[in-house]
């Protein structure tokens, strides 16, 4: 498949660009932060997104969705990287939909996917239990109790964990930390008895939570997929998550580049534009080249997901590793080339680095995915 966007995908990209610039620019992030917002986004933003069909893009038509595909959704997420827009798109319309679609029963899909597409519910994916991504190390327990289960344990840094209606929780029904077998997925109401949610204020002003489960009782119907066989679906969901985080980091890298390039053409020192110094020109040219590489790998990974290619896991890790590296370069260079003014809160350039780092760390950073890529490649 050619590595270019179709006309429809291009149109979606442009309409997302227009919408986000108008309703959710970087200034909106500042506003939400300063107001101490719980969600990190304006109240009516999600409603507007749902209305445009964004919540339904990955939902199959048979469950009331648009089935427009990953390349299309990737364009929107890339644009949210440019505007640093927080919204339930990631945790609900991507992670929630992917997990439920991969593991859910007919009934669960009909009920939950339909509700997501219609904007009736939001979700969050609760996986990691320490400060480092380690999906096989899950030790949270799900013990059989009657026909249902009792959940005990805790989850760390759950994106949208403080606001989502439904938590998709990875817990262990057998085996021990380190085993892939024995992991099961459950759909749990955030407000269920025994669920304790503690909001975590993070560098990006978004809504994360540490969640503790104390004897939380769930029915058998809460089990997503087969008992003990949840790792496959979890892995597929994490791959999708990482490809979209890479897409967002691409937007961040491009936007911080564009803004810095503009600054190089405005700021004068020594009587000339700073963009005329070769010491900065070569760094800018290398940075631009790196972003070109990033565009290719993100598009390829999105296309591979649409084609359910067997290379998705490797491509997801390549994309996340490369984009984490380049986003780090991009956001650091952005501040360095803006110098003094880049250090101020008043100037927007500093917002990009503060969103980039959590996006890099979530579901595994550069080192995690470089290691994973090597393992997948047989070394």
């Amino acid at each position, binding site marked *: 498949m050619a590595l*270019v966007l179709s006309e429809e995908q291009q149109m979606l990209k442009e309409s997302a660009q227009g919408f986000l610039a108008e309703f959710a620019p970087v200034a909106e992030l500042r506003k939400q932060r300063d107001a101490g917002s719980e969600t990190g986004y304006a109240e009516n933003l999600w409603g507007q997104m749902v209305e445009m069909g964004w919540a339904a893009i990955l939902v199959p038509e048979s469950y009331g969705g648009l089935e427009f595909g990953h390349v299309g959704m990737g364009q929107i997420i890339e644009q949210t990287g440019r505007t640093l827009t927080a919204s339930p798109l990631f945790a609900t319309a991507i992670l929630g939909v992917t997990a439920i679609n991969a593991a859910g029963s007919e009934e669960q899909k009909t009920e939950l996917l339909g509700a997501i597409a219609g904007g009736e519910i939001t979700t969050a994916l609760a996986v990691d239990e320490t400060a480092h991504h380690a999906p096989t190390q899950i030790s949270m327990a799900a013990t059989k109790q009657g026909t249902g289960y009792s959940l005990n344990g805790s989850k760390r840094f759950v994106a949208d964990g403080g606001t989502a209606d439904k938590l998709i929780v990875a817990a262990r029904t057998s085996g021990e930390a380190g085993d892939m077998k024995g992991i099961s997925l459950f759909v749990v109401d955030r407000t269920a008895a025994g669920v304790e949610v503690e909001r975590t204020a993070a560098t990006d002003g978004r809504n994360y939570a540490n969640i503790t489960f104390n004897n939380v009782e769930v029915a058998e119907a809460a089990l997503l997929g087969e008992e003990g066989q949840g790792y496959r679906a979890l892995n597929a969901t994490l791959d999708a998550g990482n490809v979209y985080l890479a897409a967002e980091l691409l937007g961040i890298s491009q936007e911080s580049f564009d803004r810095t390039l503009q600054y190089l053409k405005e700021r004068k020192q020594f009587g000339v534009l700073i963009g005329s110094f070769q010491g900065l020109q*070569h760094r*800018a040219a290398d940075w631009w*080249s790196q972003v070109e590489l990033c565009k290719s790998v993100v598009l390829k990974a999105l296309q591979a997901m649409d084609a359910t290619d067997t290379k998705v896991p490797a491509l997801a890790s390549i994309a996340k590793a490369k984009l984490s590296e380049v986003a780090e370069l991009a956001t650091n260079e952005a501040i360095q080339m803006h110098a003094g003014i880049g250090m101020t809160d008043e100037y927007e350039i500093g917002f990009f680095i503060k969103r980039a780092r959590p996006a890099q760390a979530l579901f595994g950073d550069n*080192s995690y995915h470089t290691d994973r890529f090597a*393992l997948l490649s*047989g070394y």
Partner: protein
Amino acid sequence: MSDLNAFRQETRDWLEENCPPAMRVSTKGGDEMCWGGRNYKFASADQQQWMERMGAKGWTAPDWPTEYGGGGLDKAEHKILKEEMLRINARSPLDSFGIWMIGPALLKFGSEALKHQHLPPIIRGEIRWCQGYSEPGAGSDLAGLQSKGEDMGDHFVANGQKVWTSYGDKADWMFCLLRTDSEAKKQMGISLVLFDMETPGVTPKPIKLISGSSPFCETFLDDVRVEKDQVVGEVNQGWTIAKYLLTHEREMIGGMGMIDIGSETLGQIAAKAMGVEYGRMNNPLLRAEVAKWEIDGACFALTAERVTDEVKSGHGVGATSAMLKYYGTELNKRRFETLLKLNGTDAMVWEGEASNEGWLPRTWLRTKGNSIEGGTSEVQLNVIAKNILGLG
């Protein structure tokens, strides 16, 4: 579509019948490539047969028009040919500066007479070309070249010195930049001319490189007669063509510069060399170096693919040849540094059969030239900064 299927089948059958088995084994770098030319010593009868058969079919230059002896294939057919060759691991039948550089320039800028004179022997591998651009005083600043072509009415007389002329001692003809108007502004007085290396007054002298081989020469021009009908395009308009040609060269060096290291990936070579325990290669730092290279290598290959696809679909150009040249050559250098480490002290062995006459260290040293030839990495970064980013 069915036409393309038929073409694929025909191609497959033809290759099956005509590609000698010995030509279905990967080459190990420059010496086993086939360059052709009047005095070319083929490495084997198979190599010669393969070149001649492909040349006769025009498939040494698959997308050039048939009227000049080319294959006349459209893009889809060309792609199929490449795929079918890759399928049986067929070697390139002919690699030459004729096919990479002067051929495309002649197709775009040359007169009919020049095309008919020069393209067929390039395609058949009968004439080998060299590039006379650089001079002792004109490297990155190519437009500063001083070799002169004096107008004598029906011909020019060329005097001066070229340097770094790759295969100058083995080539049959040179495409050469001369200053034909010394009054005009730097770029305005340059012509691109063609002449036979056997013309009296042309003296190529080999220069030995750090790799121990002598792939290039300094070439002296003393009262060399150049016919007026051997000027490509207009007199004094050579700079435009030279720049076009450099773009081709960059794409070639950037895209194909990934020297063939055999059919194994760097990761597979690394795993064998260092050993793997519990799924992970021994030596974690080297393992990370290999993995990072493979990640960058994959991103680069995808970018080359994307650029081609964007041009094909008329989406305008994203990355340019300057970017591909810059990144591709730096990547190739990095890869050889890693290969060296993976082979430890074995990689230092310079001579003898066990080391294939020092193939690895010699090729490693050769890669250092990738980021110099065809415009240095720094010059590519300048081009990106100025032409793409608009930084003055």
